[in-house]
């Protein structure tokens, strides 16, 4: 075992250089002003963007819940299929991810636009001018569409390990359909649920391009705000770092709570 440990050193170096150092730099920037003097102003100023924080968290939660509702039955069905069918189905789930992220999102602009595909079709039936693009709904749709595979995959990989005999036993012993679902399947798939939620919620809360393209620039999210500070016309890396830091703390807290539901040490069966 000891000799194997040596293989981990390159990754250790990688972690220090590309994860720990940048994190420390974010912290440093957040607590200093242009002249490098210590200040709490930037953290205090984050308070004025409360509504953006609330909106981001709210939209990310909605998107995560929708993803979970769609992905859970899908992943379960997937895991109960014949082995070779599973491969094909998984491929179909993954297929959109082979395409460029921007292109995928861009396509929705054309679909949802005022003179876009859906409105043109609705136009034939005499319904016109349904406003879909540049709304919060469009932003949530973009999040769900782009991050759904990240929910399906962890759920699937956990569910595929649930032995068929466990389900049969529940059935045999007179457990109803809903009983089997909530007392057998759900508890066994909790690790998949938590990692799925993490993998959807975290990118959804910090996205900026989805809200830019589908939200019409008036549905500002935290990601947009941070981007404005670093690359946009605001150019205030210190404030940007302060916002990032607060966002990181929020995500960290939410994730810690999530992980409490993980039955890591308590074996349920």
């Amino acid at each position, binding site marked *: 075992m000891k000799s194997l440990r040596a293989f981990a050193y390159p990754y250790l170096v990688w972690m220090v250089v590309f994860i720990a150092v940048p994190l420390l730099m974010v912290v440093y920037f957040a607590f200093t002003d242009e002249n490098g003097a210590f200040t709490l102003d930037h953290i205090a100023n984050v308070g004025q963007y409360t509504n953006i924080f609330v909106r981001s968290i709210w939209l990310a939660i909605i998107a995560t819940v929708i993803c979970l509702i769609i992905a859970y039955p899908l992943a379960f069905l997937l895991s109960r299929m014949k082995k070779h069918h599973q491969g094909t189905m998984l491929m179909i789930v993954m297929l959109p991810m082979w395409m460029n992220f921007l292109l995928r999102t861009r396509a929705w602009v054309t679909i949802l636009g005022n*003179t876009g595909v859906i409105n043109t079709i609705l136009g034939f039936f005499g319904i016109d001018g349904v406003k879909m693009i540049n709304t919060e709904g469009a932003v949530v749709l973009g999040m769900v569409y782009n991050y759904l595979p990240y929910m399906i995959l962890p759920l699937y990989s956990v569910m595929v390990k649930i032995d068929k005999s466990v389900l049969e036993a529940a059935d045999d012993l007179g457990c109803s359909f809903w009983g089997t679902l909530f007392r057998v399947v759900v508890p066994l798939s909790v690790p998949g649920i938590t990692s799925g939620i993490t993998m959807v919620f975290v990118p959804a809360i910090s996205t900026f391009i989805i809200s830019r393209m589908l939200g019409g620039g008036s549905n500002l999210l935290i990601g947009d705000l941070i981007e404005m500070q670093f690359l946009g016309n605001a150019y205030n890396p210190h404030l940007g770092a302060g916002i990032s830091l607060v966002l990181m703390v929020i995500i960290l807290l939410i994730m810690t709570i999530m992980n*409490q539901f993980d039955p890591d040490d308590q074996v349920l069966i």
Partner: protein
Amino acid sequence: MRCKSFFEALTASALSVSLLCGCGAADSADGSETAESSETGEAYEQTLTVEDMDYYTRFKDDGLSINVYNWGEYISTGADEGTLNVNAEFTKLTGIKVNYTTYAANEDLYSKLKNGGASYDVIIPSDYMISKMIKEEMVQPIDLDNIPNFKYIMENFRNPAYDPENLYSVPYTWGTVGIIYNTTQIDLPEEEIDWDILWNEDYTDQILMFDNPRDAFAIAEIMQGFSINTEDPDQLVIAANRLKEQKSVVQAYVMDEIFDKMSSGDAWLAPYYAGDALTILEENEDLAFVVPKSGTNLFVDAMCIPVGAKQKEAAEMYINFMCEPDIAYANIDYICYSTPHSAAFEMLDEDVQTDPVSYPSDEYLEANTTVFVNLSDEANRQMQTLWTEMKSAEAENTNRWIVPVFLILCVAAMIGILIRRHIRNKKDIF
């Protein structure tokens, strides 16, 4: 006037969209465009005439290369038949390789230079950004002795407000900001269209607006009769309130997406830069462009050499090359902006020379247009805060304590769960 084809404009806007999308995406777009310089302009047979061959062949065998950072779709690339691939011509003439990359906004350029990690020899920022960069010592003086073609620059574009002694910049293009509108939806005579149409409730959800504070504030400031370079905090607040009023009728805040949305008919009204507007007009004949008579912003984009440029003399040679009459004409003919280059202007068709959109009369320019200058840090910061506030105005009255309270609740929940688990674990033992 021959402009770039529809397809190219599509790719251009797709590219600029990806440029807009922040660091990761921008880098990849940059990378893909770098290859452009290696294409050769073989399709263009006409031999280029330059005045002083010796000047250009100085570095022929030195194997130099320069990094040029320009706006997207802002140079003649030879993609249309019969047009000139300017960068390839430069390489052919001088033996200096051109690494050509593009950006979508002055601010992208600024943050890229400010963050370091990239070295450019020639950049083409706009007026206010040039004065900001001069102030922050990010650009270096240009030796005009090395740029004999400066003599072609029109008198009224020399010694501009953003660079009073003309030490740092050589003008490349200029233009005005006006309104693009869809004539099938907006049946008004041109004279009746002024900035306030962008606030008109009859066109709710059909209006696009600039997604950058400087241009957006300028429009509101002109309507209020303020200077577009005002630093007065009260005037900025009034302008911001104007923009807030406008929010309910605006469909989206965009920049390059204006190309797509206007030509597809997705929106009816949008303010934009004259040169780009003419390109959009080529794509959809229902569109028209008007420069409001109540006044507008005159912008100048000029070539500069950033501090830290590795090949200053080669960069000056490139700038001089861009001022060669044939080259200046090829560029201006391709990108449809207005030129400050007297010889290139002479070569334009007469109907272009007298086109009131591209070349308004001197009296109009004198009376109704203003050039941006850099604002003070305080004014910039205030404008930025007001802008963010405006853009996120919907839920304005949310309490600023929500996030801290939320955080405390999270911590409490966490502790609660931990305690519960601890108790349960204890029970399990017995």
